[in-house]
């Protein structure tokens, strides 16, 4: 009894110190002087633009990584293509690599003197300090989640249902649509939720390649940093609350997904 209570006290205390206190403090600071300053801070055009930009980037990065993630997981599990082991290892790279390094790599690749950047600029395509680089950076850092969720489920369901569908006359596409996709749907949903959360919160890689120009290439996370550095604490806290609210919404979506998964 005492051991169990000890574990409970420790884990709740740990959560309180590490998680609840900082997040709670942000909410408290944001609403310290009532709703009005909060509302004023987040409805200023630069904050609104930053929010829109963050959502825009997420709406491109998430579908891209979902489609890639499903295809990549299928390639890793279902097809013994030479070199797939290497791909499997590389998929985890964004988790291991600091986003700052990713940003720097993109900077070197797409910069004025970079391999791709030189050619692209010559054709009038601006990647760095614009939406394309920010999307690339976000896609890179949020890449592993769908793959990592789908791979174990694909392994677990095995190939027999797909083989059965094939012997019954189903084409590869029909088999995928009618058999494979329904079997992995919860894993995909879970991966999408994690990808979304990661994309919304991305800071390191994007801050290097975006230039962070207020009202143009500034995402919500960058807006938080800029406000904080300019001693606009209310603005920083308000935007943080917005980010936290988005994250909490995503997590709630995840809980719903989990519940659906259990009942299926």
């Amino acid at each position, binding site marked *: 009894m005492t051991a169990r209570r000890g574990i409970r006290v420790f884990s709740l205390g740990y959560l309180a110190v590490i998680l609840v206190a900082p997040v709670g403090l942000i909410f408290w600071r944001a609403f310290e002087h009532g709703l009005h300053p909060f509302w004023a801070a987040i409805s200023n055009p630069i904050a609104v633009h930053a929010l829109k930009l963050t959502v825009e980037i997420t709406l491109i990065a998430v579908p891209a990584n979902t489609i890639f993630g499903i295809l990549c997981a299928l390639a890793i599990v279902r097809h013994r293509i030479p070199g797939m082991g290497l791909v499997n290892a590389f998929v985890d790279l964004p988790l291991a690599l600091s986003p700052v390094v990713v940003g720097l790599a993109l900077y070197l690749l797409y910069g004025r003197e970079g391999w791709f950047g030189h050619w692209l600029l010559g054709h009038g395509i601006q990647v760095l300090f614009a939406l394309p680089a920010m999307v690339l950076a976000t896609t890179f850092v949020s890449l592993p989640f769908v793959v990592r969720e789908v791979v174990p489920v694909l392994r677990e369901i095995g190939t*027999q*249902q797909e*083989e*059965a*569908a*094939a*012997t*019954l*006359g*189903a*084409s590869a596409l*029909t088999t995928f649509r*009618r*058999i494979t996709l*329904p*079997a992995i749907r919860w894993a995909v949903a879970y991966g999408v939720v994690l990808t979304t959360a990661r994309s919304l919160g991305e800071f390191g890689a994007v801050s290097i390649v975006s230039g962070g120009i207020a009202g143009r290439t500034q995402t919500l996370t960058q807006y938080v940093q800029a406000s904080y550095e300019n001693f606009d604490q209310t603005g920083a806290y308000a935007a943080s609350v917005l980010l936290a609210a988005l994250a909490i919404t995503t997590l709630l979506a995840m809980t719903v997904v989990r519940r659906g998964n259990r009942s*299926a």
Partner: protein
Amino acid sequence: MAIEARNVTKRFGDFVALDDVSIAVESGSLTALLGPSGSGKSTLLRVIAGLEVPDAGEVFISGKEATALAPQKRGVGFVFQHYAPFTHMTVFDNIAFGLTIRRRPKTEVRARVQELIDLVQLPGLGERYPSQLSGGQRQRMALARALAAEPEVLLLDEPFGALDARVRKELREWLLRLHDEMHVTTIFVTHDQEEALELADTVVVMNAGHVEQVAPPRELYDNPANPFVMSFVGPVNRLGDAWVRPHDIEITHDPNGPAREAQVERIVRLGFEVRVDVVRDDGERLYVQLTRNEAEELELAPGDIVHLRTRRERVFSASV
């Protein structure tokens, strides 16, 4: 010939699953592929279905070359060892799958599925999910699903392997009746010699990627081609060069005639069958099968000295 495999070879890395295997299966027959695990029997079935591509050799289905044909185009029904039910679909949708993907009219699908549900004796279970069925019911659902699109050939991979003994016996009888009614050419894989002898009209015995013998059950039991077949299709005693079935040894108390002396070591009563372990005077250990009546007449007890006569034995020229 409904199905023919010619000189089929299949390797998995260094492992040779099928080594130059040829078989021919007659139209309308019920053929068993019998062998121990790793003998290549399941691989041969999967090659016929198109689920494995052979490294060499050819497959013919209904006289047509099918070696490079995709499984979807072979007109083959396949029942997997663990049934491979579509877990997110109801029993009805599982059985209907082969018809709905062919875009058959709804009323036709409904009628055909209902007919199959009755045939495989799953009435009223159409709206259930596979996870709500017993093993035997899942097996029958898988069979109905394979039969829905009216395949020319039905392939069953260890169809009764995962079921308990009683259900297995019921399903065997039922499969036999079904085959008699439908006359669809059927091949099933099994490692159970009794199952092969009971169901099949032709048995293909496989071992280590080779076909050891192809014969009707009785022929296989009475005239095995080699020691492997002899020992795989039934119990056997080995006495020097000779191979003797335990029921081909007679136990008597009569010391006269060509009999060998032996001591009874252990008696096991299995209902109708009584198994007697004996040690011959030369130290050779044998086991003898008697009926209960024979055993009772002999009044055997462990330690008794008895005499053995061999009714029938086999000597293979090239011993293994």
